[in-house]
């Protein structure tokens, strides 16, 4: 037991655990909408798009949060606008806009060289380097996003499930979609420094996917995904210290392992249910 609690003697680790748990919960909550809208790739794409903004803000010498945040929000709204025109699918809109933004970031590096912040940290995350400011930032975004999901629960659900009928019923679906994109951009921006561009997609998608396999109810899926995200963040962070592997990959691997277990169990449960159903329908001799 003492061995398990040993790393909590260090402030950086305590901060890391808090941030990993909050980031996991935040991504799990937002990931429900991402997964159900069939936009799982957007987490990956948007984090790359924000990377372009990260490069631009470093070169221009503007505040990273302001520069990359504005860039990310603009990319998210652009994806939303292109998708809503229904000329091309959401997957293609994400592919075009986010990769172009990422490529622009790389081009800026090539032309002007790397300046300012650590780009390796942006790519792969640096959960052990987080300070109190980062903890407060993620806590703030988590509270804000939770409030949005709470008060916009019904319009978000209706718009995600059935946008056409929602619009016909007087729900402002364009504004609801834009709100979701803003929430997503804020989530990615807040967690990018911690989890890294390359791993955000997994933390958005895995908890929601696992939760989906465990329930048929939307409200329960939201609670489960948030809890699973927080749990994988907490367990992954602790495990990373003891197995001496980077925290980001460990968190993702914990989530992936949980997915594999639930996937296997749900397949077995489905077969057993089908067998019971078949037995009950069999004619008695």
């Amino acid at each position, binding site marked *: 037991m003492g061995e398990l609690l040993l790393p909590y003697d260090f402030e950086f680790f305590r901060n890391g655990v808090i941030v990993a748990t909050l980031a996991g919960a935040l991504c799990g909550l937002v990931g429900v909408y991402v997964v159900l809208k069939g936009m799982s790739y957007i987490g990956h794409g948007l984090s790359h798009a924000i990377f372009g903004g990260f490069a631009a803000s470093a070169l221009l010498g503007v505040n990273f949060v302001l520069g990359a945040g504005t860039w990310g929000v603009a990319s998210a709204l652009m994806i939303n606008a292109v998708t809503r025109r229904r000329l091309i699918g959401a997957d293609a809109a994400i592919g075009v806009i986010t990769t172009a933004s990422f490529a622009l970031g790389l081009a800026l590096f090539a032309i002007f060289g790397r300046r300012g912040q650590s780009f390796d940290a942006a790519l792969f995350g640096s959960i052990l380097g987080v300070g109190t400011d980062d903890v407060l930032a993620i806590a703030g975004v988590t509270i804000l996003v939770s409030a949005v999901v709470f008060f916009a*629960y019904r319009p978000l659900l209706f718009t995600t499930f059935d946008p056409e009928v929602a619009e*016909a019923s007087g729900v402002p679906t364009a504004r609801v979609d834009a709100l979701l994109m803003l929430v997503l951009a804020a989530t990615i921006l807040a967690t990018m420094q911690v989890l890294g561009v390359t791993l955000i997609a997994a933390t958005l998608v895995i908890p929601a996917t696992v939760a989906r396999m465990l329930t048929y109810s939307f409200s329960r899926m939201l609670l489960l995904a948030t809890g699973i995200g927080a749990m994988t963040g907490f367990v992954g962070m602790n495990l990373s210290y003891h197995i001496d592997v980077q925290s980001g990959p460990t968190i993702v691997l914990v989530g992936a392992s949980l997915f594999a277990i639930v996937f296997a169990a749900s397949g077995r449960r489905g077969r057993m249910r089908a067998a019971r159903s078949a037995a009950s329908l069999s004619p008695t001799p």
Partner: protein
Amino acid sequence: MTSLAVGELVGLDRVTCSYGPDPVLVNVDLSVGADQFTGIVGPSGSGKTTLLRVLLGTVTPIAGSVRRRPGLRVGYVPQVETVNWSFPVTVSECVLMARTRGRMLPWRSRAERAEVDEILDRLGIAALADRHIRRLSGGQQQRVFIARAMLGRPHLLLMDEPTSGVDVRTRHEVLHLLDDLHHDGLGVILTTHDLNGIASHLPHLVCLNTAVIGAGAPRDVLTPDVLERTYGARMEILEHGGMPIVVDDYASHDNVVGLKRKGA
């Protein structure tokens, strides 16, 4: 723009719609009354769903005008093929979506719970309130979406292909349910490909192929001429028990007992 007639809910005057270079609807005139139970028939791509969307207000015409009764509430039941049946939503969660506008709290109020229970009970699916929407029969699934539409207390119910891909028993269930709702004062407009199972049983039909080819009682519009202009194929009309029956090839039905050529 002309004003609405007494009892009229929606009026379309020379409405033309397009999603691209080719128009989907051309110069469509239509008057929808509160006492109407209308079927819209026509081939795939004839503009049936677009016409419903114009009535619903989600598609704006590029020409012509749409008149609506002030305060009109329209319920819409989408095609079952367009529903994401894997979406994690229970029957009661789905029905409650009709109570979204202006609601800030996620959970159901006591009044909303009572309203949902009452509408589910009325449609005979109260026992399925906590069941996932995929784990329902075709008829039950239709009832869930009708319940959602009804919770909005509509004056007019629009249904897109309500009997598409369902068996005969479910088709009868849905048709009888709609008939009951219509008798309770609800205007109903549905689209269908089923000329004999649905269309010929309705009091009023609109034959559509980009433009309105014919409108009126089934006996008046289910004629070889109107159907050929609507579907681009020759069809024969038989009669059985006073109802028109549409067949592709009359010769192959020549020896069917009880059927005779209309007017013969």
